[in-house]
């Protein structure tokens, strides 16, 4: 029922498209000659244009692009200042949450999640991986199959596994050696046995049977390798966020290490610090933490970002048995198997699948922007960030979304620039052509001055100097104005030439003889005769304008970030590592510019051919 209007709209759109193609065929001319004779020039042009299959294809393609770009950007709004640095440069692809079917049948021991992938330890001791590979994290080392694994955890781009014998395996990104056990740690492991492992953003930690925590990897800035002496030797559990590790000691006391002064530390309630409330389990998002005591009561503290401190209804009376946290959301399960979720819903990570709502939940796991739950029947559900269809950029922003919005900006900038230049060119060309004499001379000298500057350097110079203290919208308008104001001389000359030709024709003489005012003659009698040329010129210069905007923005002198445009999305391609490793970041926007300009050029060519009287003769 609900889909009806959409279907209807689609149908009518399809009909319109079809009619665009079939019109010419329907009117198979019987009285060909008489029909041709009657048609007005504009109708002849339209008819010729419709006959040109390529041009029609270009037109339909262009209209389709406009519909997609403008419709898409309206449907999916963008927050210009929102970034997810941890998701930067992820390659195109979806399926981050596509849990393998086999996992549901063998049963889940645990699930751990990285930025684009997840790993699970099945009840059969086998490691399952899914999602998009990053730093070869999906290729599980072969030697692991023979081991009896007890735990698998995941950092942002690396995975750590622990065997029953206390042996640690790690693979994936190892920029900071986080995926290999350092010499000092292996020495320690001669004396102590690892009983737990944890992994965070570019760091890895192990907890030994003596209650000691050892962390390695990228710890220089966060000082995560320094464990508070009050806790070292007495640690029961440690959980990792990006810059901190939250500790739980054997007495249920909570401690923190890593970057100091984060809301995790400053907003920690005193009753947790001094141990008057004893927790049994803790979990942590980026800067918000949650814990439960032995009665299943929930405690949440830290930064109230994304409503992380706003608890869901009914949770205060529930007896919570399990808690887990992603980068910006929490999930909790109570003793009756009811699932609670709260926090950010940017990637739908707290929207529980409807099929799961009726079932009891036995296991939950969240990581980054993905959520997983296992129901009583053993089925594994995954939801949340399922991936970026076209990848993400250097700030972890969805490229597909930015392409839509960038397209809107690029296409609008190009169109407005062309409108401005057409208006100026038309005005000056009309005046110069019709009045002639010194007016003509002056205006044409002026046009010569403007056109004697090469286009791109002048545009770059103007935009660089004028952009000083403008707001984002003003900067956008400035680019349109600059492009429009310096590209009119060509059109002005063209129109002047046309008017010089039209002016000598008899109908103008007749109009003059009738005593019609010059203004009226220009606007009502001459202008309609040259409007076709103006339209063709506008179309072709629109394609040029799209390319110019892209070039300017590519150099950093056009549309300025954070406003996306196809040109400035390519800005990163000035670094060779982007060209080499992150092809989607430059090929996709460039291809968008290419196909937009191509379709406009095809339409422009078609229009020009349609207007060419020689083509009409046949």
């Amino acid at each position, binding site marked *: 029922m609900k889909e009806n209007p959409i279907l209807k709209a689609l149908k009518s759109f399809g009909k319109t498209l079809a009619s665009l193609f079939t019109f010419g065929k329907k009117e198979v001319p019987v009285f060909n000659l008489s029909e041709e004779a009657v048609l007005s020039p504009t109708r002849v042009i339209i008819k010729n244009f419709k006959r040109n299959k390529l041009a029609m294809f270009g037109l339909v393609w262009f209209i389709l692009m406009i519909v997609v770009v403008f419709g898409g950007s309206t449907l999916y709004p963008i927050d210009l200042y929102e970034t997810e640095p941890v998701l930067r440069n992820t390659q195109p692809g979806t399926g981050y949450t596509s849990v393998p079917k086999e996992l549901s049948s063998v049963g889940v021991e645990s699930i751990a999640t990285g930025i684009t992938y997840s790993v699970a330890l099945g009840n059969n001791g086998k490691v399952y991986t899914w999602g998009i590979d990053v730093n070869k994290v999906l290729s599980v080392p072969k030697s692991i199959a023979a081991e009896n694994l007890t735990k698998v955890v995941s950092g942002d781009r690396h995975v750590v596994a622990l065997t029953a014998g206390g042996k640690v395996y790690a693979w994936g990104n190892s920029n900071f050696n986080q995926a290999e056990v350092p010499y000092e740690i292996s020495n320690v492991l001669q004396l102590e046995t690892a009983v737990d492992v944890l992994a965070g953003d570019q760091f890895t930690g192990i907890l030994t049977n003596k209650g000691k925590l050892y962390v390695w990897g990228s710890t220089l800035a966060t000082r995560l390798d320094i464990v508070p002496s009050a806790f070292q030797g007495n640690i029961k559990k440690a959980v990792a966020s990006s810059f901190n590790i939250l500790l739980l000691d054997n007495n249920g006391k909570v401690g923190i290490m890593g970057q100091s002064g984060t809301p995790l530390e400053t907003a920690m309630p005193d009753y947790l610090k001094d141990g008057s409330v004893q927790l049994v389990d803790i979990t942590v998002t980026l800067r918000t933490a949650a814990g439960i005591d032995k009665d299943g009561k929930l405690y949440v503290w830290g930064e109230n970002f994304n409503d992380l401190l706003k608890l869901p209804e009914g949770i205060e009376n529930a007896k919570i048995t399990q808690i887990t946290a992603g980068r910006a959301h929490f999930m909790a399960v109570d003793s009756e198997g009811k699932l609670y979720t709260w926090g950010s819903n940017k990637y739908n990570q707290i929207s529980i699948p409807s099929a799961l709502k009726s079932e009891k939940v036995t296991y939950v796991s969240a990581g980054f922007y993905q959520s997983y739950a296992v129901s009583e029947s053993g089925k594994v559900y995954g939801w949340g960030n399922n991936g970026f269809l076209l990848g993400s950029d250097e700030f972890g922003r969805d490229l597909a979304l930015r392409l839509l919005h960038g397209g809107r900006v690029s296409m609008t900038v190009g169109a407005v620039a062309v409108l401005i230049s057409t208006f100026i060119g038309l005005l000056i060309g009309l005046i110069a052509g019709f009045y002639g004499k010194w007016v003509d001379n002056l205006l044409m*000298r002026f046009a*010569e*001055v403007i*056109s*004697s*500057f*090469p*286009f*791109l*350097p*002048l545009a*770059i*110079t103007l935009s*660089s*100097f004028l952009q*000083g*203290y403008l707001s984002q919208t003003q900067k956008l308008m400035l680019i349109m104005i600059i492009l429009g104001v310096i590209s009119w001389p060509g059109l002005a000359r063209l129109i002047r030439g046309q008017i010089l030709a039209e002016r000598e024709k008899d109908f103008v003489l007749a109009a003059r003889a009738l005593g019609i005012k010059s203004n009226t003659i220009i606007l009502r009698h001459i202008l309609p005769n040259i409007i076709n040329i103006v339209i063709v010129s506008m179309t072709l210069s629109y*394609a040029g304008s799209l*390319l110019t905007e*892209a*070039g300017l923005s*590519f*150099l950093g*002198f056009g549309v300025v970030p954070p406003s996306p445009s196809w*040109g400035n999305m*390519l800005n990163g*391609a*000035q670094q*060779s590592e982007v*060209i*080499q490793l992150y*092809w989607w970041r*430059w090929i996709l926007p*460039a291809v968008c*510019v*290419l*196909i937009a*300009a*191509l379709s*406009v*050029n*095809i339409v422009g*060519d078609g229009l020009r051919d349609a207007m060419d009287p*020689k083509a009409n003769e046949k």
Partner: protein
Amino acid sequence: MFKFLFKRFMSLIPVIFIISVMLFGLFKSMPGDPVKLMIPAGIKSEAQRQMIYDQKVQQLGLDKSIPEQYVRWIINTASGDFGTSTSFNKPVVDVISTPLQNSIKLNVFVVVLSFLISIPVGIKSAVKRHSLFDSFWQVFSLVGLSMPVFFIGLLLIFILAINLRLLPAGGMPFRFNGNFINDTLQWARYMALPIITLTIGNLAGTIRYVRNAMIEVISKDFIRTARSKGLSEKVIIYSHAFRNALIPVVTLVAGSLVGLFGGAAITETIFAWNGIGYVLIQALNSRDYMVVLTMNLFYAVLSLTANILMDIGYALVDPRIKLK
């Protein structure tokens, strides 16, 4: 001829005057103070900074009135002194002379190559209209016209430099050892990709232009006459038709001289080629007014000269046009 040239040059004087006034006015009204950037960062004391500031202002003549500054600038420029670059701290001429040479080296090849390819291809396309050859080049030029020039460059870097490792991805040749063959090879290696990029970008437009001009001429009556006389197709096309099609092509040659200097900014940036466009962008980023001012004036004079060249070119290829 000389009378024409003299008159033509005289008519340029008001245009150049207006351009210089506009440029100067534009640059005077710019926000930002380049002199402040010239003070060495190490000096912390306010009084000392002020002293150096005053000194620099005086040195650059910025304490004079605006008209006086303009006159000084014009006189200096006319006598070949283009001022001092604030970011490089040396005369503008020195700043832009090497890049200008680099750009010219690049562009000579591009212009020659693109005309060497586009003229035969354009002619053949026009003669064999709607053939496979024609269709191919039509599609090529349509796509080429719609392709941002940096995309061509990036694709070439991606394929030839990064994946196949055939050519350097960018930069200037530096491993010279005095051996002529080695040095030439160095230049060739580094120039190859920018030249290919610019040539492809150029070809798209020129092939179309030549083709259209030829089609126009081929449909004329005198070609039919020539055919009916029994002249060979080669003579008709290359002697009769092409000479007449040359007139629009001359416009293109003159236009491409300027276009290449201006349009090379993007390509030179991609390939880190130390050319004139690259310098313009660096100068803009460091607010180096004198360099930008000089370069814009240079561009303007260049394109005005190209216009004159175009007129002379017309007269050379078309005896009907008389320069007076």
